């Protein structure tokens, strides 16, 4: 692996050298009018690149987005000082579960790491005793209903 990485590092390093060598080649080879042409082109190309490099265009909006005020999420369980998340309280647990039954990530709900750990355990326990769905409850509940309707 280390060797591959080294080779990878060398390859990009070698490429610029080759590029650097190529522009230097034509001026040395060509004389008179040939000189001015490539040099001017090089200068024009260099200009836009420099403008793009600092990221005045794309970089600006990104910084602007970061400046948006983001409401700081606070862990609900910490606020209520819960030291135990009861798996029997399906009403609480269902707030931290998607419609399909997926456990919502911490970055969405703002739950702290410790409570998220307990929450995961509680949700899994609740799933075991049919208080919460495992997955796909939305599709699972509609399809059988239709079948039952046909039968009746």
């Amino acid at each position, binding site marked *: 692996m280390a060797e591959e990485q080294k080779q990878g590092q060398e390859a990009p390093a070698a490429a610029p050298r080759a590029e650097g060598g190529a522009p230097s080649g034509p001026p040395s080879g060509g004389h008179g009018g040939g000189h001015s042409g490539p040099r001017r082109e090089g200068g024009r190309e260099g200009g836009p690149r420099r403008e793009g490099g600092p990221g005045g265009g794309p970089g600006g909006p990104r910084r602007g987005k970061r400046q948006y005020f983001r409401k700081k999420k606070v862990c609900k369980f910490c606020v209520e000082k819960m030291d135990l998340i009861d798996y*029997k309280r399906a009403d609480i647990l269902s707030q931290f579960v998607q419609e399909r039954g997926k456990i919502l990530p911490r970055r969405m709900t703002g739950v702290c790491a410790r409570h998220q750990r307990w929450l995961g355990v509680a949700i899994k326990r609740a799933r075991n005793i049919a208080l919460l769905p495992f997955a796909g409850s939305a599709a699972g509940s509609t399809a059988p209903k239709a079948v039952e309707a046909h039968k009746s």
Partner: protein
Amino acid sequence: MEERLYDLIFIARPATPEDEIKKVVTSIEHACTEKGGKIEKAEHWGTRKLAYKVAKHREGMYYYHQIRTTHGELITELERRLRVQDSVIKYMTIRLDEDLKRQKKLTEKREKRAARRPRRPAATPAAPAAPAPEQQAAVS
């Protein structure tokens, strides 16, 4: 063996006659008394919608027991009995005491911390003191 606390939940078929459910509950009680367990709580949650189909049923009657025991075999015995019952479509036992112990520890820690803090709130007596002189001025 130290004492342990368990949650025992079982779901019965929605249209089970009461006699059968009584049978199940009494068999649980019998097993507890035989093997040296104690039922701390016994609740009936009523008929609830199941989150997914269990044995082709969308609803089920939930029964909840909290059992304290020093003998682990009691739990295996209870699970065996529930498995045999036809009216029971799902059951679950969960060990609770470790979680409760952790909870106790954390609440104690929090209370200790809360007891240490209340040195700061010295600013509150200053607020009622301020309006008092005004009242005096109004009187005079």
